């Protein structure tokens, strides 16, 4: 049957990409349908129960600044919060949360149910409806219901032709316990979108009641001050004001009680057991063809590649407050179950551990993201968007960021508006999208701070400053967030202004004090901003100068203080980066003609010719970022453009987007 209501946007899949896509579209006012094969698994964390981390935390804060739900759900579900790299500089600082699966799912579910314009329907999708052969206009569910809509966002995750491996046995599945999506995969294969196969894995889960924690090292989160209580065997701790907060709209009161993680290690006996299973490993026997991530190898891979290492660290992470299930992070494996059991029992603290679920590797289809336009619409089929793991990425955070991005663009395309694009210097989301569409993936793509050349200005602490206003214009940011943001932004600019206009010198600061604070006495007048730029000085010290005469009249919020301090300290570096951005802008706005014949450019290597022909970048800047395209290639390209009668194309027309 044909479903009576016609939607603006149909989102297929209820994982982290699907929920953010559907929520974003609905926030913008689009009539949105979220189709999932199981409502109970909306917002499920199928891998390890944690949100954030380096690069990933940055993405979560960006999604949050654009009104997304991942950060606030993590605040409601987080049972351990940490700020990683806190001493290494603000640009690489990142938040990581250990989340209670049940609480997290509930937090997401609650927001989906409360969202206006959003309709949820439980049924798996078998087919995509096309209008005129190359435009998506709806989907067909398993039982034959036709849903029509202006755009379709596909977020099928690992469910496309998923195959689970434990030892040499394997079976179809989308995630342990859930069916794979075969019909859809076959249908997409017919559409001739270029595909590849990737692999990822999880460790066996353990019953915490069978772990001897006295043999493990305890690791509390940040801002928790209850070590004494924990020594008595109590594994929980009341939440504390100093525990970090993820969302701009979050606070520490939202957090449930905090619990520790535990650290143990593999040993030579463990490694021996693992080696004895190599001959039955689906990885080493060729059963798995998909490529796994290098940064998240299985334990057998680690033993194989780093044979000299005598032990490997394992984090025992609680899955929640109301469960004993423990996720042993660091020993993802697809070895046969008997080997899994033996290797677990060889580890200190786990001698008598009971395995609740075996570890497994999962192979799944992904679609080559170089087949996407910069707005995440497929080049082959208009109004069809791909987001999340289907694009070859890994991680909840990468999925959420793509979901939000595709959701917004799906709305734009149905409204006939210009695509919404983010640049590499604006957001990690911009880096993510640009990397995917230009470089493709050779392993599951994960965000790292080293991927961002403009890292110094893409910080967690200024995600709100960078993106809230953009989100507000798109209709993603509600009044409450917008109001709170304006209060902070005004406070920051007022205080920055004050620091630049307040002068300190020999006339108003005792030389003994300036010698003590600055190492030598001030020869002439400096503004507070100039003094703050010195590496040895922080904001608090400035406010204490001269008994506090230079302090702000009104008490500045902690986060605003931090923002003022970082912005001033990094000003020099960031303005240098801005010069680079400007210089690069000429490349970014040099449009490559649509009809350019790369294959005829004999001066280019064959590889470069093929890559350019396949990806067909829109600008010279994009071309330069394609892997294997060297500066020399770009020089040659420019010569061809000049000599090949393309002069007209080389004017600064600006991007026409899709």
């Amino acid at each position, binding site marked *: 049957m044909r479903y009576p209501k016609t939607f603006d946007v149909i989102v297929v899949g209820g994982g982290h990409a699907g929920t953010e896509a559907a929520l974003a579209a609905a926030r913008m006012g689009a009539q949105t349908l979220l189709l999932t094969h199981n409502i109970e698994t909306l917002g499920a964390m199928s891998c390890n129960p944690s949100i954030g981390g*380096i*690069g990933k935390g940055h993405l979560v804060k960006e999604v949050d600044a654009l009104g997304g739900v991942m950060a606030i759900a993590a605040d409601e579900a987080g049972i351990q919060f940490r700020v*990683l*790299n806190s001493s*290494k*500089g*603000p*640009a*690489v600082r990142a938040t990581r949360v250990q989340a209670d699966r049940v609480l997290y799912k509930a937090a997401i579910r609650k927001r989906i149910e409360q969202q206006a314009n959003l309709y949820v329907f439980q049924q798996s999708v078998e087919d995509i409806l096309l209008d005129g052969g190359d435009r998506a206009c709806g989907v067909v569910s398993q039982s034959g219901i036709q849903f029509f809509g202006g755009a379709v966002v596909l977020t099928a995750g690992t469910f496309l032709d998923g195959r689970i491996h434990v030892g040499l046995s394997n079976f179809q599945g989308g995630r342990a316990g859930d069916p794979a999506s075969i019909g859809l995969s076959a249908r997409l294969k017919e559409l001739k979108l270029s595909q590849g196969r990737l692999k990822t894995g999880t460790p066996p889960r353990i019953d915490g009641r069978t772990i001897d924690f006295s043999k493990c090292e305890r690791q509390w989160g940040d801002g928790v001050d209850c070590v004494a209580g924990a020594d008595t065997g109590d594994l929980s701790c009341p939440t504390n004001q100093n525990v970090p907060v993820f969302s701009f709209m979050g606070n520490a009161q939202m957090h449930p009680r905090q619990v520790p993680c535990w650290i143990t290690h593999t040993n030579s006996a463990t490694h021996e057991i693992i080696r004895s299973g190599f001959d039955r490993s689906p990885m080493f026997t060729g059963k798995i063809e998909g490529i796994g991530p*290098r*940064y*998240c*190898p299985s334990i057998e*891979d*680690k033993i194989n*590649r*780093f044979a000299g*290492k005598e032990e*490997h*660290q394992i*984090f025992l992470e609680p899955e929640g407050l109301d469960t004993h299930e423990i996720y042993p*992070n*660091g020993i*993802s494996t697809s070895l046969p179950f008997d080997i899994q059991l033996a290797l677990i029992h060889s580890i200190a603290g786990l001698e008598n551990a009971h395995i609740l679920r075996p570890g497994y590797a999962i192979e799944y289809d992904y679609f080559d993201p170089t087949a996407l336009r910069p707005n995440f619409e497929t080049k082959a089929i208009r109004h069809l968007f791909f987001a999340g793991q289907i694009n070859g990425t890994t991680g909840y955070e990468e999925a959420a960021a793509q979901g939000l991005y595709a959701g917004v663009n799906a709305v734009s395309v149905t409204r006939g508006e210009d695509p919404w694009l983010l640049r590499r210097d604006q957001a990690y989301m911009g880096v993510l999208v640009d990397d995917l569409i230009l*470089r493709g993936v050779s392993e599951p793509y994960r965000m*790292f*701070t*080293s*991927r*961002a*050349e403009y*890292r*110094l200005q893409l910080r967690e602490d200024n995600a709100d400053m960078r993106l809230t206003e953009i989100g507000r214009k798109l209709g993603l940011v509600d009044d409450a967030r917008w109001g709170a943001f304006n209060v902070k932004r005004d406070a920051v600019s007022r205080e920055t202004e004050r620091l630049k206009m307040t002068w300190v010198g020999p006339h108003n600061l005792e030389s003994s004090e300036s010698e003590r604070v600055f190492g030598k006495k001030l020869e002439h007048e400096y503004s507070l901003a100039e003094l703050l730029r010195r*590496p*040895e000085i*922080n904001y608090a010290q400035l406010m204490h100068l001269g008994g506090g005469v230079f302090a702000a009249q009104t008490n500045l919020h902690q986060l605003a203080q931090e923002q003022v301090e970082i912005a001033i*300290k*990094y000003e020099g*570096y960031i303005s240098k980066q801005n010069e680079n951005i400007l210089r690069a802008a000429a490349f970014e706005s040099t449009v490559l003609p649509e009809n350019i014949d790369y294959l005829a450019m*004999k*001066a280019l*290597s064959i590889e470069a010719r093929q890559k350019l022909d396949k990806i067909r970048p829109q600008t010279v800047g994009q071309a330069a970022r394609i*892997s294997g395209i*060297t*500066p*020399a*290639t770009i*020089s*040659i390209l*420019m*010569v*061809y453009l*000049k*000599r090949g009668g393309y002069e007209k194309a080389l004017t600064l027309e600006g991007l026409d987007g899709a």
Partner: protein
Amino acid sequence: MKESIAAIATAPGMGALGVVRVSGPALAELALRLTGKVLQPRYATLCRLRDDIGQVLDQAIVLFFPAPYSYTGEDVLELQAHGGTVSLQLLLAHVLELAKLIELPLRLARPGEFTERAFLNGKLDLIQAEAVADLIGASSQESVRSANRSLQGDFSKEIGLLTAQMVGLRTLLEANFDFPEEEIDSVYTQDLLSGVQTLQAQLATVLRKTQQGAILREGIRVVISGQPNVGKSTLLNALAGQDLAIVSDIAGTTRDRIEQTVQLFGFPLLLVDTAGLREQTERIDPIEKLGIGRSWKAIEQADLILFVRDASRFSDPKYLAEDDKIRTQFDANTPVLEVLNKVDLFDSSEIASGICGLMGSRIAPDRGVETTTAISISAKSQTGLDLLQSAIAEKVGWRSTNEGLYSARRRHVFALQSAVAYLTSAEEGMLSLNSAFDLVAEDLRLAHAELCTITGAFSSEDLLGKIFSEFCIGK
């Protein structure tokens, strides 16, 4: 059909041999008409070249390279004739004339066009291609020549080694950022610091050699400047060893700049004599005015300014004030060497007490020995020239030991200078209290990017690959 091109392929000037090269899609007929023979491909054939009325123009070795086995990938005809500008010009004109006769579209080649065709036809590899890209953008013959100089093997090898060290340092730092929970050696600060210091020292050494190489290759432009009648032209003649400029006692004799290349300790020095600088008053005629304008232009382009001063006029406050005024208008980044001329008019004690005292008081003590040194000479009696030559060499960074110099381009020098500066900043960052490592990483990234402008791109993906191969990552 695509036009054929022709040009004299050897450097202008007198020489035993000169080559006229022709390239185009089909040159067999031209070759036949020119030589009267069917040439065997790629064999040297001695031919009598005749003009259109059958008169012998020259005897030449002729080589015919049919497409695609030639430098440009097209048919190429090379005429190796006797040298000499006029005879080669005649030969070229004849070839063009003959082509018109047989209705072959042939024209003079633009600078670098043979190479451009070679590369458009896929005859050059990517490293050469970059030089070619410069070349096509080059406007003057001079820049064409400099673009033609390709990267020398040893230099790129050494830069390659240093880049590898840089990658090592960045790998350590970035792995520590992106995988803070992994068991990557936590006491790496000391390693990192000493790594940065070592690399900086090595880069500075390479930079010195590269600078020398660039001097050797591209020469140094030395502009002789100063007020009228201080003896600039006399100095040019003295340094050049011949009378190039007219000298007289009349101020403003030199109206236009005169250039001459001389060898100094084996490196090329382009001496530029300029019109004397003076206030542009009504009394100056328009031609001299133009000359002064050109003088300032020359000063802007100088690698080194020889600021010539008349020691006999140091008692004149107006003269000194004018010198000071000129001096302040020099670009602060261009090195200046002060030359006190006409010391033959004094005895040595006068020089010692008067002039040196004056100089010493004017120069700030913290500007180093180099700037405080003024060289006293007499261009007329040719005294002090040795000292001046040594001072020039020293000032431009030339050292007499030329072993292991790199034949590099200026832009390589700039890239290395920037890289060293970024490493210095990284070192300072690490040594300072409360150092933020993200800023140190930024300095290293920028330094690395500078090296990459010499060696080629290095992406963040490459960096991650390095991290994964060196550290056991995988929580």
